[in-house]
């Protein structure tokens, strides 16, 4: 691995970031919640199987509803219709996912929360993008 990594084009990114801010896709977060609402926090995972596409999720809880974003940064999308059913620990959310080519597609995720009392709890389920269904998994960051 090289010692010096690539340097971004900061000016271009600044422009895109202004766009992201206008769309409300950034927020202040001190998301420390290991022991609060079980989804709250930052999660990393993937869809599409073992060498699938990486995904980052941020969930937040305001006492009434779940909000959050997929892939914070320049291809972020909001979580929509997010819900947690505590009777069976199933989770549902939707998003207008942006892939690396810039294409946007509707995605529906249905998953089950596992190892719930562990601060590194896990979501396992399915990622449905258009008519394609694939495995989805994510683990809460420590």
């Amino acid at each position, binding site marked *: 691995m090289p010692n010096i990594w690539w340097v971004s084009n900061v000016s271009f990114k600044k422009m895109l970031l202004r766009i992201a801010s206008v769309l409300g896709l950034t927020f202040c977060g*001190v998301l*420390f*919640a*290991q*022991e*609060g*609402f*079980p989804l*709250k926090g930052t999660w990393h995972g993937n869809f599409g199987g073992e060498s699938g596409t990486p995904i980052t999720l941020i969930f937040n*809880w*305001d*006492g009434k509803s779940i909000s959050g974003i997929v892939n914070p940064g320049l291809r972020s999308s909001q979580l929509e219709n997010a819900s*947690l059913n*505590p*009777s069976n*620990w199933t989770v549902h959310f939707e998003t207008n996912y942006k892939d690396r080519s810039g294409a946007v597609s509707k995605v529906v995720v249905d998953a089950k929360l596992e190892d*719930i*009392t*562990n*601060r590194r709890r896990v979501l396992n389920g399915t990622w449905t993008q258009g008519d394609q269904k694939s495995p989805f998994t994510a683990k809460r960051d420590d």
Partner: protein
Amino acid sequence: MLSAAPGKNGFWNSGTGGLHGKGGAMNLSTNLELDEIPFQPWARALYDERRRDQQKNDPHARCLPPGGPRQFHTPYGLLIYELPEMQRVLILSGGGPRTWRVVYMDGRPHPSEDDGDFVNGFLGHSVGKWENKDTLVIDTVGFNEQFWFARAGYPHTEALHLTERITRVDYDTLKYEATIDDPGAYTKPWTGGHNIYFVEEDFEEYFCQGNNRDAEHLVGE
């Protein structure tokens, strides 16, 4: 008034009693039963999970600090030192990671949690006053979500606003009562508490971090 007489040993024998359930020698007769606690559904389900797996993931077992009522549920003793000349009360734990909590008695308000310099913490920000000359009322906000606020394992969120009432009923008995006001996890505020008894001994040195070998063996069911 809440500590031993000057020159004498003594501490409050913390570690027993709870915030729900009536009866027994410790719990208050005014406590709610478990099914009366106004949990939001996710909070009750999480509480049940923690009971089911024998509380194996309790942060307290990993030497994280005991915030709120948990400080009164931490074994190995509690000291409450009033420092009127400094307008402070200190609550010192003999067990756990040797926690000490400051209660400001100088009339200051809580800082705004939106203030960039305010950091939500394990102990929060506590202000206090005396009620009827015999009850210390402590008002605390600004908790983080990295601990369990009671040994039973009830969940909470950063929205928790805790009010504690501490009364020395007689020399040997402290009545502790907590009101949990957390709209993030409960549908309305609720109150519970217990008694704690005085022991005329001194603390031993106890640092949870010193010889804690349990964490890797906590497997639950």
